[in-house]
């Protein structure tokens, strides 16, 4: 492209070029404002991404009334940024294009040779709402939204501390998504911050539409059923973890925030534990632990006991189970496996279907597959009970992604139990434990503070000690470990 003369032409060229480069979208607005006779100020923005009130009431009116600030705006300012008019046209065009598609309003004063980018971003989206996946009875009802600005505000609201740091980066060669790293500078270990930063910087991908995209790139080990990063849509939970010295990663466009590092016992904690009385919270924590074991092991132990180790079952129960099984065609192992699969199908169907047919599905699930199957003698009643128990206990877990891993483990253990009974389950359990102790999340052993053992921290693991009896300002063992390094 040949060199063009400065002045009037650059404004109209730029506007025209951008229009062509974006393919003349319907929401592109190019307005020519005329503050006084000879001057024309071009105003370019995407109608769908900007806050029209700001543009009308502030920018347009101030330009037209000729009261628009003409002083040299600081270049570091995120809100109003001035680009040097003397820069090469190519660069200028690229910058302006980028600005337009990220919701900025571009003002071009061709006569006075000035060019401003004004942040007027206001994409359509939800307002702050209740967190869907982690509801609580007591505690704040606010959840993160898809808008990263609002999310930042939700965190700031809870931590009024100058040490709170937000580091923004853009990931995704095509999507150009905004990813934000959040931490407390005075609390978070330097090694951890550096590690997260470098892992984020190493991501090479075309798009980041949800935080799980990032999660898969930065977690320590991919071949594991366990989440090694915590995801939450609760700002209070995020703030609590930040105050423990952890690092959060936010992605624009999703309410789910990632928190690193994660240790295994934190999967059993819910935000509400800290809003309830300590004794109740402890009790509930134990209920969760029991539920975890029931969800993972109940069907496999049932299979092991009924097909390999009948001597374990009390006589009366054995007689009753034996009577139930008279005429049931499938072996107990297949019975359990099939029912579990059917249950998973019902569950998945329940998640994806339109709300209106939900009633019908639960009727089909409960009556047809439970009662009718038992009455027809296809499935023994005990199996239905076992499957129902595992299904319910699975919902107890406060972290959804952990619930998914439990489901996977359950099937593995059923297979092992059907293969070698209790011995198979034992081998599986040892394998699982070996896997868990070898797992790390950002350099922190997954089972901290149980293995390696750290007694000081047990006050918030198996019990939730009352707040006054916890050591004040004690960071969790995982973070202290990183700080020592």
């Amino acid at each position, binding site marked *: 492209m040949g060199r063009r003369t400065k002045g009037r032409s650059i404004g109209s060229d730029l506007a025209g070029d951008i229009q062509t480069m974006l393919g003349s979208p319907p929401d592109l607005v190019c307005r020519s404002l005329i503050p006084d006779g000879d001057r024309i100020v071009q105003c370019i923005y995407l109608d769908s991404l900007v806050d029209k009130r700001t543009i009308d009431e502030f920018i347009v009116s101030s330009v037209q009334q000729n009261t628009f600030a003409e002083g040299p705006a600081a270049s570091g300012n995120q809100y109003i940024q001035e680009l040097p008019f003397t820069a090469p046209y190519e660069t200028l065009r690229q910058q302006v294009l980028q600005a337009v598609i990220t919701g900025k309003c571009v003002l071009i004063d061709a006569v006075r040779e000035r060019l401003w980018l004004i942040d007027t971003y206001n994409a359509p989206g939800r307002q702050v709402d209740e967190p869907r996946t982690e509801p609580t009875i007591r505690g704040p009802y606010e959840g993160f939204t898809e808008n990263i600005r609002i999310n930042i505000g939700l965190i700031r609201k809870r931590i009024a501390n100058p040490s709170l740091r937000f580091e923004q980066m853009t990931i995704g060669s095509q999507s150009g998504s905004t990813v934000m790293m959040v931490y407390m500078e005075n609390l978070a270990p330097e090694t951890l911050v550096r590690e997260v930063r470098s892992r984020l910087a190493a991501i090479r991908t075309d798009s980041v539409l949800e935080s799980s995209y990032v999660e898969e790139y930065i977690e320590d080990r991919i071949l594991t059923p366990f989440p090694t990063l915590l995801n939450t849509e609760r700002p209070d939970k995020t703030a609590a973890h930040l105050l423990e010295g952890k690092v959060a990663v936010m992605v624009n466009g999703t309410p789910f925030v990632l928190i690193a590092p994660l240790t295994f016992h934190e999967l059993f904690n819910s935000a509400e534990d800290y809003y309830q009385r300590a004794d109740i919270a402890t009790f509930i924590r134990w209920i969760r632990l029991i539920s975890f074991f029931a969800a993972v092991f109940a069907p496999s132990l049932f299979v092991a006991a009924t097909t*390999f180790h009948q*001597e374990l079952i009390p*006589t009366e129960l054995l007689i009753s189970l034996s009577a139930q099984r008279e005429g049931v065609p499938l072996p107990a192992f297949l019975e359990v496996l099939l029912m579990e699969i059917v249950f998973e199908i019902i569950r998945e169907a329940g998640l994806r279907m339109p709300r209106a047919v939900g009633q019908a599905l639960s009727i089909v699930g409960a009556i047809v597959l439970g009662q009718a199957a038992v009455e027809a003698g296809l499935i023994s009643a005990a199996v239905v009970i076992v499957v129902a128990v595992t299904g319910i206990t699975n919902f107890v877990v406060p972290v959804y992604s952990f619930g998914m891993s439990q489901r996977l483990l359950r099937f593995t253990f059923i297979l092992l139990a059907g293969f*070698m*009974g209790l011995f198979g389950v034992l*081998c599986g359990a040892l*394998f699982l434990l070996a896997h868990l102790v070898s797992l790390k999340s950002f350099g922190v052993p997954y*089972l901290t503070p149980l293995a390696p053992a750290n007694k000081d921290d047990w006050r918030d693991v198996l019990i939730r000690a009352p707040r006054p009896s916890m050591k004040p300002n004690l960071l969790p063992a995982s973070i202290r470990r990183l700080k020592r390094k």
Partner: protein
Amino acid sequence: MISRAQFYLLTVNFTLGTTLFVTINEIIQRGKRDAWLMPLWAGAYGMLAALLWILLLRSSPGKSPVQIAREAWGPAGVIVGILYLLWFCMIGAWALRNVSDFMNVTIMPRTPPSMFHVMFLLVASYTVVQGTETIGRLNGIVTPFLVFPFWTILMLATVDWDWERLLPAFQNPWEIFRFTSLMGFPFMETFALMMLYPKVRSGAAGALLLGLASAAMSISLVVFMVTGLLGPERAGRINYPIYTVVQEVEFGKIIVNIHSVLIVILITLIFIKLLVLLYAAFETIRELSRPAARWPHLVALSILLSAAAVVIYENPIQNRILSNKITFAYDSFYTILIPSLMLLSLRIRRAIQSRGRRS
């Protein structure tokens, strides 16, 4: 690197490993009512042997016995290393065979023994690949789940306790010293832990000795309880006395059979033992040949171990004769003779070196 506490727990669990399974009836058969003294005495001997090993490893800090052998004897040390490798495999195979024998006799009579071996080796190999820390932590996290249920079950069994079974006491106190193989198995076998010794952060020596002492006391207490619960007449004849003790416990009418819990505990203990042995064997290979990949060697080791476990003895009677007659001499060769020689030649070599430097 593992911590002192982890090493201590490893020592205890390694020593208890197969002992609680296979030697209890042998001990009671020989010691009758005073059998509980025998593990204490054998444990004291084991601690003496451990002192020798500690002396050896302290003479070259940070080195394992295999590395020390190479330092002391150069290329001939490689042969010693290979001998140790075979010895570790041998004990490992023995432990595996004990598992499958036990499972076949008690709750799973028709499963082929090799299935038990292969499953265990698979899990153990995975753990060994993850490294020393994983072994230490795994053992640490498993231990409470072994200790509390085990002693709870034994305590619950004391409803059948009868002091008369332990009387008259101290009838022939010297009889207990004649069961020498108890010194070899389990106490001298703990030499395998010396492969882990250099990986302990600090205070490994104390942990090892304390671990041996605790294990000896635990075995003694178990023998004492089994004698008091079954009587020496039955306990000496039954193959797996602890199993029988627990099999006969009844809590009310509901929980009649809790012996599976015990089976799980005992088998897990053996798993720990196998884990340490596999690690020792693998570490020996690594120190001898420094391979780049880990899995091929572990697969080879697993195949070797599972095959050895099948052929190590033909029948339980042969096993008893083997372990009674040969164990002591066999284990002494590896754990007393070779270490003493290594220590001696190291001392001589250093003495010569320092003289050479002085002159």
